[in-house]
């Protein structure tokens, strides 16, 4: 009898909720029943409330069970799960789970599906098609394809990737670098981690294509130290890619060269800012550099450098394989393609949702997210990480697109969406934002370094005593204005977003009367 194949994710988040114990229980039970099994440690499908989610290959159809605990395992065998048998944890064929069925997985097409480190798996699921295409094209044509896709930077700022590459391409001959920003410091985000753990070759392929496009033969992945599992996967993937001739002096026999190095961060949020990141690779404190010069012209070690986010680079193989127009046919306005949104916080169904731009917050929060986990009404969501604005319930019909969010004084950022129920104290969240900025400021400019500390003090005052709150709020607004206008980078420059949005939409939490109440009194 052919051994049956089981999929038990090796993803760090799934490990954090007991995947190893489930695996051990499965192996024990299989041995007891004298069954031979093949276990694949895939990435996560991103349906985290159902993790550990175990899949069984039943005659070529993957059937899901979850969330599985070790105690469930004997019962699952008894119920005949290896043949797709009925059980309360049975979720049906994985591909038909509505949460997945509704998604448009382009960048995440293989994550959770394949064995992350098996290059053969990667190839048979569409991997390397983009690189093979790129190797037949002149650099100009690769850049033109990326421009046609409308791809914008997924790290937060949304800068058009094609334009960045064109600048580096045009920066003359000599040493150039591709730097992947895998610092993923934004709270509420985990798409970079999932991609690196679940489909590392996709990122590597994207970086090689970027190298071909701009004329760079060396790449660095700057990975945050909080991601040891991603490090281990990437380390093995880079070694395998080298061994298979994907990296090195002769990419797939083309005579072209690309080398890739991993670099570990050291727990500084600001090192996600691209120039601070470059300083860090150079062995220095991560002080943000003034721009100009742009990193595209004088980046790593003073050389022209592409700095792109993980998801940006991982989108490139798909774009080259299917064409820029195919990618641009998804999305709305100037927000083309898909974004892997990350649903987090107080939601019943947290996870990864890759869909085209234009979906509303409401659809994400209630359609996918299933509403609050606590059963209480949602009250606020923070979109775009710790520097993102809080969006109140009245604005849940806002479509997720860069321009619509900017017009509403908010940002899409890296696509993290953190939901809070009605027990949240927004004055405390505002204080937290200032505190975070004070902790993580690189210290280069006064509005950020001193302003954030002053902000914490002001908010502590407001939280402690109700009397003077009106005046303090005015001071806080002034301070935010100074930070907005006088900061060198977005840490100081955007911390006012969560603070001011909290103040604007939830004045009652600060002991202030809303303007509406004032008018009607």
């Amino acid at each position: 009898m052919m051994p049956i194949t089981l999929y038990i994710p090796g993803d760090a988040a799934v490990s954090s909720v007991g995947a190893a114990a489930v695996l051990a229980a499965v192996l024990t039970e299989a041995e007891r029943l004298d069954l031979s099994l093949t276990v694949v440690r895939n990435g996560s499908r991103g349906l985290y409330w159902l993790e550990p989610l175990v899949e069984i290959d039943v005659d070529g159809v993957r059937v899901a069970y979850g969330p599985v605990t070790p105690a469930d395992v004997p019962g699952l065998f008894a119920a005949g799960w290896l043949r797709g048998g009925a059980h309360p944890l049975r979720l049906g064929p994985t591909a038909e789970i509505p949460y997945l069925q509704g998604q448009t997985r382009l960048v995440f097409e293989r994550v959770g599906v394949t064995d992350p480190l098996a290059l053969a798996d990667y190839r048979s699921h569409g991997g390397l098609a983009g690189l093979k295409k790129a190797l037949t094209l002149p650099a100009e044509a690769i850049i033109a394809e990326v421009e046609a896709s409308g791809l914008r930077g997924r790290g937060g700022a949304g800068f058009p990737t094609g334009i960045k590459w064109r600048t580096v391409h045009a920066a003359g001959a000599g040493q150039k670098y591709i730097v992947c920003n895998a610092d993923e410091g934004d709270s509420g985000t985990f798409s970079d981690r999932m991609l690196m753990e679940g489909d590392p070759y996709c990122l590597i392929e994207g970086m090689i294509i970027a190298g071909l496009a701009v004329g760079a033969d060396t790449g660095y992945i700057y990975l945050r130290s909080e991601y040891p599992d991603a490090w281990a996967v990437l380390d093995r993937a880079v070694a395998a890619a080298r061994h298979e001739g994907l990296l090195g002096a002769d990419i797939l026999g083309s005579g072209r060269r690309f080398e890739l190095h991993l670099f570990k961060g050291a727990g500084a949020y600001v090192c996600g800012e691209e120039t601070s990141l470059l300083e860090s690779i150079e062995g220095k404190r991560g002080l943000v550099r003034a721009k100009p010069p742009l990193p595209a012209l004088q980046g790593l070690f003073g050389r022209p450098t592409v700095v792109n986010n993980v998801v940006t680079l991982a989108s490139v193989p798909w774009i080259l394989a299917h064409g820029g127009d195919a990618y641009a046919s998804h999305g709305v306005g100037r927000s083309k393609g898909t974004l892997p949104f990350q649903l987090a916080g107080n939601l019943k169904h947290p996870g990864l949702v890759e869909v085209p731009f234009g979906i509303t917050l409401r659809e994400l929060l209630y359609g996918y997210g299933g509403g609050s986990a606590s059963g209480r009404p949602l009250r606020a969501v923070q979109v775009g990480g710790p520097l993102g604005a809080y969006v109140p319930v009245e604005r849940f019909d806002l479509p997720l697109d860069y321009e619509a969010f900017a017009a509403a004084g908010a940002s899409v950022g890296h696509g993290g969406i953190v939901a809070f129920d009605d027990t949240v104290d927004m004055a405390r969240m505002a204080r937290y934002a200032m505190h975070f900025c004070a902790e993580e400021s690189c210290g280069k400019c006064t509005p950020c370094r001193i302003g954030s500390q002053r902000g914490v003090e002001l908010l502590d005052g407001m939280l402690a005593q109700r009397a003077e709150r009106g005046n303090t709020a005015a001071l806080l607004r002034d301070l935010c204005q100074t930070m907005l206008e006088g900061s060198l980078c977005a840490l100081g420059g955007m911390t006012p977003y969560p603070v001011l949005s909290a103040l604007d939409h939830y004045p009652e939490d600060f002991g202030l009367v809303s303007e509406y109440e004032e008018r009607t009194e």
Partner: protein
Amino acid sequence: MSPENSHTPAQAALLPALHAMQDRHGYIPTQAIAQLAKDHNVSRAEVLGVIGFYHDFRLEPPGRTRLRICRAESCQAVGGERLAEHAVERLGLDWGATSTDGRYTLEAAYCLGNCACSPAITLDGTLYGRVDPERLDALLAEKDET
């Protein structure tokens, strides 16, 4: 000479060297600073500046058990602060502190990338999700046994 050589100074290996040293000893011993400075062609003050800048590096040995609790937004949204307060009380430690008997170090983290399984912690570097005070107590008790 290729630009790579002239543009890749010895200093670029400083962070990897600090990581390696900390992996080995658990911290950066003060006696090592002079050698690090020499190896990477920078002043001692600069090495200390780098160590001070990054949250990861420490100049003192950590406790035998290192507990990091995520205090960022997603974890806060589902009871992370209750968990944080519980840890402070149970260990009798402030954030960043090591107990006098060298048993525990308690640290705050700002997102561990485990936000879909919040609240998240790491215990001696191992990531755990959906942690409430009871689960934390159980995990700490397991550590005490070993």
